Every structure is written in C-alpha cells, then in structure tokens.
C-alpha cells in the first residue's frame, strides 16, 4: 500500500490531488529528510527499480547509502560524495548517473533535489525528481564518438588541413600540420603583420611567398577556389613541395562562412618530376649535341621533329616549307635533297614507309648556305605493342669528308696504278700527245726555216739542207713514239697470271661503284658460274673494263630515264666473252671508233678504245662493238679460256 510506503497524508483531498499530480508526471519524484533518508519515492520509480523504498535507505549503523545497490558502481562514489556534500551544505543537488532497472539493465537518469527549510533556515526536507535521460545520453555519446572520430580523421589524414576566417585569419591547423610546422596557429605572431601574413612569412619559401599571397588574396577577395604549389618549411628548416587547395564554405545567403584548406606533401613527386625532367633534358641534350643530324617523322613520313643540329644544318624550321595542297614530306624533300638524288630518295623512302623496312641511303643534302654535302641517312620505324608503326626515327651522318677522302684515295690509287703500269688511258693519251707533239713542233719550225733559206736571195742551200735533215730526223722520232706505244702493250706478257675472271670483274665493280651511284647508273652484272680461268695482266684488263664501263656511263649521261649498264660474262666455246652494254643513243660507226684519235666526245683524245683494242689483242683476244637491242651500244671482248692450269 502506498500509504504504508509513503508518509504523505492521503486523507487530505488537496494532498491527494497533489500526490496524483506528482505520480502521474513523467519521471520519478522523491523526498528525503535532512539526514538523506527517503521519505517518499514515487511508485513508478520503485516499480522501475524493483525495490521497496526502505531498501533505498541506509540501515542503522552503516556508512554507505541503501540505494548503492541500484546506482551503477562506476557512478556511485561520485553521486554519493555529491549527496553528502549537499546534505551537509544545502547546496542544490544535481547529478547524472545510471540506475539499475529491475531486469538488471542500467539506464541514465538525471537526478535533481532542492532542500526545504523552516523559519530558522534549517533543512526540513529534500524534494527531488529523477528523469530518464538515456536517449539523450546515448545521442551525446554518439555525438562525442563522431566528433572524436572526426577529429581523429582530421588529425590522421596524411594531409595538412587548415581553416581561415572569411577575412583570411588562420584559425585551425590539423595535428599533422602542427607537427610538420612545429607550431600551431596561436604560436605564429609577427608584429606589424596580419596573422595570414605572419603565417606566410614564417612557413612559405621566400621565392613562393609573394605569388602565394597574391593568389590567396585574390581568392579571399573573389571567393574563387585557391590552388597552387609552393614550398613549405618543415620544423627542421627543410622546405617541402606542397600542393594546396582551399574552398569557401557558404551559408544559405551565399556569404562565406569559412575557408577550408587542404595541402599535401608532393615533395617526392616534384623531386621525381624534376628527376624526370632532368633526365629528359639530359636525353634532349644528348640528342642535340650528338654529332649527327636527327629527325622524327610520322608514320606517313611527315617530318615532326628535328634536332637542333639538323635545323641549323638545313637553316629552316619544320613547317617553313609547307605549301598548300602539298604534303610536308614532299615539299621538304624538294628543298633539301640534291636534284640528282631526289628520285632515288623518294623511291627508297617511299618504299620504306610503305613496307616498314629500315631505310639507308647515301645522298647529298642541301645545307643552309646552298652547299650540298654527302650524308648517310638511316631511318627505322618505332612500333607500339601491337607492332603498328607509330613513328620513324632517323639519323643523317655527314660523310662528306669521308666521301671526298675516299674519292681522293681512289684517285691516288688510280694514279699509282697508272704510274706503275703506264696504262692510265687519259694520262697515257696526254703523254702520247706530248711525245708526238714535241717532234711535230720542231718539224714545223724547221720546215719554215728551210722554206726561208730556200726563198732567200740568194738561196742558202747549205742551211736548207741542214734543216731538211733535221726534219727527217724529227719525223722519224715521232714515228718512234708511236711504235714505242705499241711496244708498251706487247712487252708485258710477264705480268700475266692465270686468274679467276669473276674476281677481276668484282674488283672493277667495286672501284666503280661510287662513281656509278653518283652518276645514277645501275650496274646490272651477270657472271656465269663455272667460268674457266683466264691468263691476263690484271691491271691492263681492268683498265679495259673501266674504260668500256665509263664509255657506257658517258653515253647515258643525257638520259633522264633509268640508266642501266649491263655487264654479262659467259663462256662461248674456248673463249670467255664479256659484253658491256648501255642504253644510250647508240653508235654510228662501230669500226671507225677503234681508230686512234677518233672521238665524239668534247674532251677526249680518242685513244681509249684504240688502246683497249690493243690490250685485248695483245692478250690474243678480240674487241668489237655492236648495236645493243633495242637501243644503245654493246662492246664485246673475248679472252682465251685456260682450260687447265
């Protein structure tokens, strides 16, 4: 019965009404005497706790409160201390703690009590309420947990977070930032500077500070997001590259409430980029300083890069020769390739571009000053993982010096050969001319003198006779020269050796390869297998070959179409037959041209073919000319085959 358990007078209607109000209110109500012993506990509370009121009071002779059993052990000491204090002092009692429900579950409550006093001010009674705040408490805890997590997040993210007021005053650095800088927002203070200026001055690299300040000021003024890279000073004084961004937080009205900033350490990235740039620079420098002319072209051959050396060599840029309606490759080749080499370059380069085969060609390249230099160009395709050509990379090596040196060397070799064998045709012709000319000059002068002595009045017969004798002498001497030349080609049978003829041809071909390339003559050589050896003076027969091949090249000089010189060697009965044919304009007088001093050339002594025939005949062979089919001339010579050695 409640009357038994509570000391309130229920007979009084007003009191009964008051009790009803108290007991029907949410929450628990209680009263206690000045000693702290409960005089009333609302039934709902007792029901909640599953205890009788007296269970809550302190038994006689015990120190601890009876409600110890229902208050959470972790809260008890605190709550008890407070209650004792309030009982003693009369201070308002106000505390939060957990109470054990009848089923053993603890719930949070807020407990408040006020003392009532008599006219002398003595505490007569305590009145209090106990209201469940479990949900509130849980919400608070959850909030605290979230805040803690958030704060942990803020401190743990591997970035610097910071906050500014709309005016730009720094108000927060996260923990990492504080650790990095070695100071917190509050630590940075510079007399005469705004807080922001002070921060910038203290921690931003002096080279970056002005631009950083300017960018930040602009963002603060306009509300535009801020983003830049700068170097930030670490506590140990080392600057690190940072990538920083900040954006404003706005309220409903669009006013900026705060700036949130984030910056993260990109030092390693920047250093790696620098390293990459440095290695790129090194590579570029390597390319630019290599003593070679380098270029790159698109898969279709369009030039897309030139090394500095090549640009300087050519004297114009990639697109300087661009013409409307004409591919850059064509206009570039027209501008830089020697006209005589252009067709070959176009054909070969086109072939490489079409097939992907590497390209290599020696040709002349026009330098900025108009001089053509011999270069060797090589290009190879660069392919992607699928094997598709993505680019052509090429190099031109200046081989002008080499080519000229080789030409010099060859000239020197030829001179040497001539000197030792006296068989160099041009010089031989000149020397024959000189040998014949000297006696002729004397004969002419003597003839004039003779004529004069005879024409004198009176005629000086004595002197005329003397001069006539000299004329006879000198004329014989001229005839001697001619027979000496004949002898020259007959005497050297000792020098003959049995030689595989194909090696003689191969040597000759090598000797003339460059000249043929320069004169754009394709040498088409066909040597039958199993040729019998021949007994020849190697140098003389080579001179015959060289002379006949050059004749053929000369004959095709005026051709604009392809120049082909065909050399065919095969055995016919007991001779080795060599045919040298060109596709020039052909010959009018096949026999006459073997006569000495017959020439159709502007600069020629007309001795070449005569001497060739004399050499071949001295080898017991024959040399003659025929018309080539369908056009041009064919020179044929035979040498007796040596069947057995």
């Amino acid at each position: 019965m409640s009357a038994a358990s509570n000391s309130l007078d229920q007979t009084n209607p007003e009191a009964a009404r008051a009790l009803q109000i108290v007991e029907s209110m949410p929450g628990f109500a209680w009263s206690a005497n000045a000693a702290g012993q409960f005089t009333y506990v609302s039934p709902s509370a007792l029901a909640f706790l599953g205890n009788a009121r007296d269970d809550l009071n302190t038994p006689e002779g015990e120190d601890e409160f009876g409600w110890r059993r229902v208050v959470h052990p972790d809260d008890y000491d605190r709550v008890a201390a407070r209650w004792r204090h309030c009982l003693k002092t009369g201070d308002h009692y106000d505390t939060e703690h957990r109470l054990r429900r009848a089923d053993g579950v603890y719930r949070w409550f807020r407990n408040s009590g006020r003392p009532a006093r008599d006219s002398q001010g003595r505490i007569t009674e305590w009145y209090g309420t106990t209201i469940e705040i479990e949900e509130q408490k849980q919400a608070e805890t959850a909030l605290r947990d979230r805040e803690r997590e958030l704060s942990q997040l803020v401190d743990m993210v591997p970035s610097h977070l910071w906050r500014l007021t709309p005016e730009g005053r720094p108000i927060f650095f996260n923990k990492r930032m504080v650790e990095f800088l070695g100071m917190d927002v509050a630590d940075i203070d510079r007399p005469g500077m705004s807080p922001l200026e002070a921060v910038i001055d203290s921690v931003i690299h002096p080279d970056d500070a002005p631009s950083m300040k300017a960018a930040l000021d602009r963002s603060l003024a306009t509300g535009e997001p801020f983003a830049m890279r700068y170097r930030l000073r670490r506590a140990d004084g080392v600057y690190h590259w940072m990538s920083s961004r900040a954006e404003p937080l706005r309220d409903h009205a669009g006013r900026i409430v705060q700036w949130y900033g984030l910056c993260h350490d990109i030092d390693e990235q920047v250093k790696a980029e620098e390293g990459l740039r440095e290695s790129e620079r090194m590579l570029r420098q390597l390319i630019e300083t290599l003593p070679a002319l380098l270029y790159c072209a698109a898969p279709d051959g369009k030039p897309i890069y030139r090394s500095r050396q090549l640009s300087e060599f050519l004297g114009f840029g990639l697109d300087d020769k661009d013409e409307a309606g004409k591919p850059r490759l064509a206009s570039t080749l027209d501008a830089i390739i020697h006209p005589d080499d252009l067709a070959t370059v176009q054909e070969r380069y086109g072939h490489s571009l079409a097939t992907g085969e590497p390209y290599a060609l020696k040709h002349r390249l026009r330098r900025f000053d108009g001089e053509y230099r011999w270069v060797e160009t090589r290009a190879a395709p660069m392919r992607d993982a699928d094997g598709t050509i993505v680019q052509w990379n090429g190099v031109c090596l200046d081989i002008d010096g080499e080519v000229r040196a080789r030409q010099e060397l060859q000239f020197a070799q030829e001179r040497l050969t001539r000197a030792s064998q006296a068989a160099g045709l041009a010089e031989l012709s000149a020397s024959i001319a000189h040998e014949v000319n000297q006696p002729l000059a004397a004969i002419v002068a003597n003839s004039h003198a003779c004529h004069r002595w005879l024409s004198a009045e009176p005629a000086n017969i004595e002197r005329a006779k003397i001069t006539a004798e000299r004329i006879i002498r000198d004329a014989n001497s001229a005839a001697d020269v001619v027979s000496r030349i004949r002898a020259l080609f007959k005497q050297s049978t000792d020098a003959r050796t049995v030689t595989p003829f194909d090696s003689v041809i191969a040597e000759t071909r090598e000797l003339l390869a460059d000249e043929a390339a320069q004169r754009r003559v394709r040498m088409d050589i066909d040597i039958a297998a199993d040729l019998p050896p021949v007994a020849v003076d190697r140098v003389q027969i080579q001179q015959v070959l060289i002379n006949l091949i050059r004749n053929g090249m000369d004959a095709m000089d005026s051709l604009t179409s392809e120049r082909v010189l065909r050399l065919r060697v095969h055995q016919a009965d007991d001779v080795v037959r060599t045919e040298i044919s060109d596709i020039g304009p052909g010959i009018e007088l096949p026999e006459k041209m073997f006569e000495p001093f017959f020439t159709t050339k502007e600069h020629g002594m007309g001795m070449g073919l005569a001497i060739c025939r004399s050499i071949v005949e001295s080898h017991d062979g024959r040399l003659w000319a025929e018309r080539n089919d369908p056009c041009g001339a064919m020179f044929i010579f035979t040498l007796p085959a040596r069947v057995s050695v």
Partner: protein
Amino acid sequence: MWRDVHLHVASKGKRMMTADQIVFIVDDDARLREALGELLASHGMQAVTFASAGDYMAADKPDVPACLILDVELPDINGFDLQGQIAQSDHPPIIFLTGHGDIPSSVRAIKHGAVDFLTKPVNETDIMAAINAAIDHDRDIRSRRAELGVLRQRYRDLTPREREVLPLVVSGLLNKQAAAELGISEVTLQIHRRNVMQKMKAASLADLVRIAGQLEIPITYSRRPKGSRV
C-alpha cells in the same frame, strides 16, 4: 755557265754577234730549241737558248732590246714560276710557248704581264709577229726607262733647297705664296726657281710639271686658301 746555251747566228756570224736585238728561248726540248733558233736565224735574228729556267737566270745577258720565248713545262721550275721570279726586275717581254695550252693558264700568263701565249706547233707568221711586237715593246720600255734615268740624275743634282722649291712650283703656287711657305724672300725664290728649270732642262713650267709627274713627285700644296680645301 754557258753549258747547253747556244748562240744561233746568221752565216756571217761576226757581224751578227753584235746584233742590236736578241731573242732568248727557254725550252727543255733540244730539237725545238734548235729548230726555233734556226727559224730566227733564217730571219736574220740572233737567238740564245737555255734548257732550264736556272740556266736562263744564271746567264749574263747583253743589254739590248730583247724578248723571252718561254715553255711552260721545264725541268726545274715551270715557266709561270720563272715569270713570277723575274716580275720585279727589268726583264724582256715574255712570249709563252707550250705543248698543251688551255684557257686558264693563258689567262694567268697574260694577267701576269706576258705579251703572248702560243701553242706548239707554232707557225712562222704567228711567232715572228709576236717576237717583233715584243722586241718593239721592249725597245719602248727601255727608252722610257733611260729617259727616266736621266731625269732622276738631274733631280739628284738639285740642291736640297731646290728640291723643296720644285713641288711648290709645280703645285701652281704663286712665287709669293711659295716664298712664304719656305720663309724666304720672293727674289730668292725666283733664283731657285730659275735654277730648277735650268738643271731639270725644262723648257717651260708645263714641261717641269710633266717631268715632276714622271718622277712621281707628290704635289702636296694647294693654291687655294686653306679654308676652301675640298
């Protein structure tokens, strides 16, 4: 020194040895030397032949109008080099005669002062015309050289003061101006001037000006007032 140097003279030798003109021939071919000498002899001209440039350089040459027929190909130095070596001294006009003449070498020879460039074999008309022209040319040079020698001697005979007066007079300065220039009286200047005219054998002032030109006496004074100098 006269080894391999031959004199070609007409039959009545002694008279011709004292000929008043001479043709030098340098050619390494003995037959041609002989034949050219014979041809010249048939024209009554004296020739002296040499087999090399060195022989020609070493020889004593009579001081008479002459010309030099020079082959390009010589055993020691070639004809062009010999031409270069003698270019600075008084030498007879050169006719080149070569077995293989080409345009560049003929241009080079003429540019360096040769009077002709002929090729072997050469016909009589061409070589004789060239020789006669060359000798005439040499005679002309010699007479001018001689006249200049006389003038130089006369100039050397002037007193130092007269040599100062000469350029002032030929510059066209008035006696008064010339006297002032030298700081002497006009009368004294007139005496010097008369002596200069006499010693230089100048018939007139115009003649003296011509002589000064030949002697290449610089005209350093102007009659114009200094302010109007151009």
